[in-house]
């Protein structure tokens, strides 16, 4: 119920619709033969994966298999790690993102990320959400900024809990609230692609359901890649699923197919709970 209200929020419901149409025509993300290594250690080898527009792709696999590593390649977050080397080709909207001509700042504005560990800024809740809007100058007035912050917090299902204390520090929230704050912060700037690294790991079932609804709603306009450890979640929200194991992309395809008729025995053992 709560969610429906949020979606119908009048603030700028009709504004980005035109853009969404344009995005539909592009295959959004394709990784070709991506190999990532940390120093001498190869974390991902030869991964080729395509994530179509307006779909949710979930990445599953046992801990340490390279899901986060892959996700961080898609907005070049791995550039920050000195020892990390990425080989192969990654296209976002047809553009090779490791091309020297690409401005990584602009890339990250278009490919947003929710990190595995909630990392709110040690600033007020309001400023956390408003920060992206401010640096990209996405609002022209103070009221518009406030509206968009409120809208984002509502979509992330956090508004009711924080509406009366927007000036408190983001770090004073509980773990799950921080996680939703980070989601609100990311979706506030409306990136074309949203990368979510276990966004529900600290959430209760109600908040999880809220985020799953949000993901489904965001899918209409954006492309989403989500890492999850919950098979049920992957099955519920994603159209496509990719299974990683020990740095390899074992199998990927329609979620339905992966969960019902996996081709690889490793996939089968994982989703039935025998490895992982």
């Amino acid at each position: 119920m709560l969610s429906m209200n949020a979606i119908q929020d009048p603030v700028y419901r009709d504004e980005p619709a035109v853009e969404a149409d344009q995005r539909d025509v592009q295959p959004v993300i394709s990784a070709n033969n991506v190999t990532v290594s940390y120093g001498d250690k190869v974390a991902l080898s030869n991964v080729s994966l395509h994530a179509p527009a307006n779909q949710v792709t979930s990445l599953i696999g046992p801990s340490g298999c390279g899901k986060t590593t892959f996700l961080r390649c898609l907005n070049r977050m791995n550039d920050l790690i000195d020892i990390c080397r990425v080989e192969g080709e990654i296209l976002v909207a047809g553009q090779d993102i490791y091309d020297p001509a690409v401005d990584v700042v602009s890339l990250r504005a278009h490919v947003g990320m929710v990190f595995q560990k909630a990392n709110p800024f040690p600033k007020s809740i309001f400023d956390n959400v408003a920060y992206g809007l401010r640096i990209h100058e996405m609002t022209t007035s103070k009221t518009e900024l406030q509206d968009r912050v409120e809208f984002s917090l509502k979509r992330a299902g956090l508004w009711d809990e924080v509406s009366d204390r927007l000036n408190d520090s983001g770090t004073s929230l509980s773990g799950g609230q921080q996680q939703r704050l980070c989601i609100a912060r990311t979706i506030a700037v409306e990136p074309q692609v949203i990368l979510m690294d276990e966004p529900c790991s600290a959430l209760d079932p109600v908040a999880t359901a809220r985020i799953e609804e949000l993901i489904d709603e965001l899918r209409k306009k954006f492309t989403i890649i989500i890492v999850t450890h919950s098979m049920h979640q992957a099955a519920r929200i994603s159209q496509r699923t990719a299974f990683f194991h020990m740095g390899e992309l074992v199998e990927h395809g329609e979620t339905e197919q992966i969960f019902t008729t996996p081709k690889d025995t490793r996939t089968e053992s994982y989703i039935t709970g025998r490895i992982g």
Partner: protein
Amino acid sequence: MTKSFTEITPALKRRHAAEARFQWIGRVAIVIAIGFLITMVVSIAVIGAGALRQSHIALDVFLDPAEINAEEIKNADFGGVIKAALRTKFSDVTKRRDKRKLYGLVSSEAAYTLRDMVLRNPSLIGTTPKIWFIASDDIDIFFKSHNASGGGEETHRISSKEVAWINEFKKAGDIETRFNSRFFLSGDSREPELAGILSALAGSAFSLAVCFALSFPVGIMAAIYLEEFAPKNRWSDLIEVNINNLAAVPSIVFGLLGLAVLLNTFGLPRSSPLVGGIVLALMTLPTIIIASRAALRAVPPSIREAALGLGASQIQATFHHVAPLALPGMLTGAIVGMARALGETAPLLMIGMVAFIVDVPKSIVAPATALPVQIFLWADSPERAFLEKTCAAIIVLLTFLVVMNLAAVLLRRKFERRF
């Protein structure tokens, strides 16, 4: 493993004994350290406290119109007038040597005190007012140490005659100690009873201001660049090693650098707080850079990632998020560096801030000295009375150091771990 946790094995006993031993060694070490500290502070404070009081002597001075021309007060021989007053009071003193001792009861400043008084109020001429003069250093020390005990013997600095004179003043209530505001309000002097720390304090303040203005912005900018922007390669490693080495370079070397480069090559004014400040800034810079880099490194990388992940540029992430979080740590480092600079003597000696400065410096290019240098100068003086001045100046210096370090600690407390 024993069968039950109630059983105490010899091994367990040994472990407990080792722990108790270690704790006792720690406690003894702390007690020794505190003991030394207290001994030092107390002994300095006891001697230095004397400098806070100054003996004054009252004389009935006949302002002889024959000596003091109302038209030309400035040129009158006020020293002679005071000598005459002393002669009148102790008319039995006739020998030339004794007379010289007698005149030495009051400080050489007395003539100026009297002149200023008459200048302000010329109608005094012709009267015999009672005027308080600063006593000379030996008399001051003798009186302060024997005031409580009453009588007082002659010492090798005070003859029996002088003791008698002092006792005579004492009987009439014409000698007393007063709060020595002069110590805080005047510059250096050859006469211990006249010497004050204001010029040295002002010199230190100017030098530190120059030092802070140069080293803080340069230091934190260098740290931010090295930590957040510079590529990590052989060159940055080389720079890092050299900064660490610079922090360990003896300060006198920086003084030599100042002498050779700032004074001899660039011809900046000798003995000036400007040069002192630059030299201290060079010395403080590595400390600030190292502390600032540590503060930046303590900011969790997830904060950077959060900002960059939203599409902030490197400089936005740094100045909106990382630097503000690191600022208290940087400030703490800067204050600690400043405190070190405040106590620094050697480099200032090299650039001539060791001069005898009476006037309080008015600008950063005026000749000046610094507090620790003043202490060094006084400690070097032969007059015994400078001992208590030295100790009092040390107390002032220590107070500033403690206040600065306290500020650093409070700052660190206040902003500790907000993330």
